[in-house]
């Protein structure tokens, strides 16, 4: 065998082995492999798309505009406080994105504009109207989207889906894919919920607080609220804390009387994490830190409320209500108590995940049940096998021995395609399966082109060997051009495609690109091997 042929045979062998190694995780044999294999060799393979394994695909829009509105409202509140501290008499109202300050004296303007750099005046007269600067508004919107992404991540982590995909799309959209989830309705509810984290002062000093029952059973909250609706001070409300008995699993609800007005909101929170108190008790605690504005506010709040409790409220549920032991300056605090590690972790998650000020709106929800996916896979397999058989038989009947060679190239093509998809950890969707099957139908085209050329050359009286060589040469550019045209459409599909369509683009383009290789290297090598053995007088084509 000539050297040239030999290295092509080696190349074919190596690519087939590589393809097999990459594809192995998709076969039952992977489990049978020894430990060193499963640990060191590729273990991902081809992932099934949502349409094949069931699951949900959600697209949310983060309503950044609302985050700016909420921030505006907070700034207005902070303005009120700081002006009254400076003994400046001004009426401040906020509506939507605007804060109106009256009257518009120089003194008030200076006090506001020196301290609140994010505000820009949009209208001056007897009143001044401020709005948040464009730059700041953009920053808030960006943050809102980032935080929403983080929040969703946290929430999804909590219910343990094997391989979730969560990513930002455009400036304000978030795409969530949860394959194989069992209760899609619940997942949608949990993820889509708008969370608002607030810190509220507990009003233990009010005489009503003493009357409230210590705990109630779940389901009795309404009754408690009704009973005390008239009694509680106008600026107070009753919220509930959920307590689970670690040993018995029994759930109790603890009603807590808090101030309606939030002392601090979640967006001021920078970080929350679990630490272990190594020196003393060994109990875990949660340390939190605020941003600059938050630190200032936290300082004020703690100074004014020493010995009172501060409730951590997420979506109107109290998660913890630690006591403020002393004034805390500098913006970092520790929440201690006899937490278990789990409780501390949960609290940190609530704090972090709850720091989302912007509500989300669901734009798209595609849910596929597991049974449809299984049906689709079975149907795809069946169609693939039957389609391939039809093509294989046709080629043998029509081109005889050369048809067998073309079928060899086809098999080579399928193996490489699966291997390539597995090596890229590509996602296989139902349209993707259609792409593979179509690629199989089109794969023989290169060989058909060549064989027809070879037949032409044979008819012109050339020897089989010369006919094959010149047939290949002449067909090359045609094959190249025809493949590129398909690749262009596949590239466009890939660009525009969402989920399933992208899968089609991937399999079709990989199939076509690999076909270029198998047709030009695969079949030609077989012909060369045949010709290298002996003088061939007749070619079965």
């Amino acid at each position, binding site marked *: 065998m000539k050297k040239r042929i030999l290295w092509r045979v080696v190349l074919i062998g190596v690519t087939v082995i590589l393809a097999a190694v990459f594809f192995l995780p998709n076969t039952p044999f992977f489990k049978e492999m020894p430990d060193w294999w499963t640990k060191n060799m590729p273990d991902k393979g081809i992932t099934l798309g949502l349409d094949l394994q069931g699951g949900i695909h959600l697209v949310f829009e983060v309503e950044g505009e609302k985050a700016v509105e909420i921030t505006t409202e907070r700034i207005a509140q902070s303005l009120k406080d700081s002006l009254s501290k400076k003994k400046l008499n001004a009426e401040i109202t906020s509506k939507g994105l605007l804060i109106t300050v009256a009257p518009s004296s120089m003194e008030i303007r200076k006090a506001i504009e020196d301290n609140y750099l994010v505000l820009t005046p949009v209208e001056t007269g007897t009143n001044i109207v401020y709005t948040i600067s464009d730059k700041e508004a953009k920053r808030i919107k960006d943050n809102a989207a980032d935080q929403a992404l983080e929040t969703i991540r946290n929430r999804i982590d909590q219910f343990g889906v094997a391989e979730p995909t969560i990513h930002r799309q455009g400036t304000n959209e978030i795409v969530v894919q949860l394959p194989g989830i069992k209760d899609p309705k619940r997942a949608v509810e949990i993820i889509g919920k708008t969370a608002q984290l607030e810190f509220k002062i507990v009003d233990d000093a009010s005489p009503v607080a003493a009357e409230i029952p210590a705990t109630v059973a779940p389901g009795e909250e309404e009754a408690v609220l009704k009973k005390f609706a008239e009694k509680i001070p106008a600026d107070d409300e009753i919220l509930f804390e959920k307590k689970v008995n670690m040993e018995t699993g029994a759930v109790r609800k603890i009603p807590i009387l808090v101030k309606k007005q939030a002392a601090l909101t979640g967006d001021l929170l920078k970080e929350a994490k679990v630490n272990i108190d190594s020196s003393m008790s060994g109990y875990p605690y949660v340390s939190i830190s605020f941003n600059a504005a938050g630190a200032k506010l936290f300082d004020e709040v703690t100074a004014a409320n020493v010995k009172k409790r501060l409730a951590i409220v997420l979506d109107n549920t109290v998660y913890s209500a630690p006591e403020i032991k002393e004034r805390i300056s500098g913006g970092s605090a520790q929440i201690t108590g006899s937490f278990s590690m789990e409780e501390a972790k949960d609290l940190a998650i609530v704090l972090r995940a709850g720091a989302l000020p912007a509500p989300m709106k669901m734009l798209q929800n595609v849910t596929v049940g597991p049974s449809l996916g299984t049906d689709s896979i079975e149907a795809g397999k069946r169609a693939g096998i039957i389609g391939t058989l039809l093509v294989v038989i046709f080629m043998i009947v*029509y081109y005889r021995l050369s048809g067998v060679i073309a079928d060899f190239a086809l098999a080579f093509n399928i193996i490489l395609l699966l291997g390539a998809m597995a090596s890229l950890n590509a996602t296989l969707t139902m349209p993707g399966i259609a792409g593979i099957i179509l690629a199989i139908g089109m794969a023989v085209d290169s060989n058909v082109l060549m064989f027809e050329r070879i037949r032409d050359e044979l008819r012109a009286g050339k020897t089989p060997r010369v006919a094959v060589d010149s047939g290949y040469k002449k067909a090359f550019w045609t094959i190249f051009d025809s493949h590129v045209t398909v690749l262009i459409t596949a590239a466009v599909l890939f660009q525009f495609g969402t989920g399933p369509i992208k899968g089609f683009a991937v399999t079709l383009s990989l199939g076509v690109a690999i076909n270029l290789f198998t047709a030009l290297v695969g079949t030609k090598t077989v012909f060369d091997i045949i010709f290298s053995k002996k003088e061939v007088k007749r070619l079965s084509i």
Partner: protein
Amino acid sequence: MIEILKNTKIDFMGKRNYAFILSGTLFLLGMVAIVQIALGRANLGVDFSGGTAVQIKFAQHVSLSEIRKTLDEGGLKDFDLQDLPAENKILIRVKKEEAKLGGFSEKIIEALSKRFSDKTPVIDSTTEIGPKVGARLRKDALWAILMATAGLLIYVGWRFRLRFGIGATIAALHDVLVVVGLLYIMGREFNLIIVSALLAIAGYSLTDTVVVFDRTRENMKVRHKEPLETVMNASINEVLPRTVITSLTTIFAALALFIFGGEVIHDFALAMIMGIIIGTYSTMFIASPIVLLWGRKKTFARRP
């Protein structure tokens, strides 16, 4: 050696006027379909129209009229029903856009699972598309088709000459439009999967055409004294076996998908089969005649 269509001498170019009449008619049909789609009067899938689609599988047959009655009683309005009787599946679509997603699918599922609890309904899939996403997907699909057309025009124009690029692109557009027209008449649903089938058809049709042009270019070098029309005819005849065989093998694959590939891919396969047949026809009867129509002067290919 089995040979089909050996040494044919069919006068493809001579039949171009008939082909133009036939294709013109089908082309117009396609245009009508496009206008209807744009006006939202065609059968658009929820991914384009926005709205809700729920597919439910029952253990036994349930008649459409029963479902209709149940949903009416459940307070739902303006829904379409479609059944896949072979698998006892029902597809319910509500195209009205809702302010908040989720309302319709819940109502549908609730009403049906209560009424047909004895027939163990299983929810195959639910799709809820907000108006914003529907509009964006429509726009994206249009862009994809335009981008693909431009890309192909540029490539073929570069590899051959502009008029060949134009001939090939018009032929491919023709194929896509005719398939759109046929799908419209058959009342099939237009959705994202169909758009990808249409793009695949454009790619396939172009491949077919490029092979013929390639042969024409090659023949022009040897037979440069003959009129272009003669050379084109000869070239189409020369590659005819390849055109037919490749179309056959691809149709085999598409047919397998159509019959065995399941409901999700059924219409996709149907579009592909029609596209392959029409693409093969346009390669023979439309692409080359259009190049001829564009200018009779001798301007043929360069590069090998």
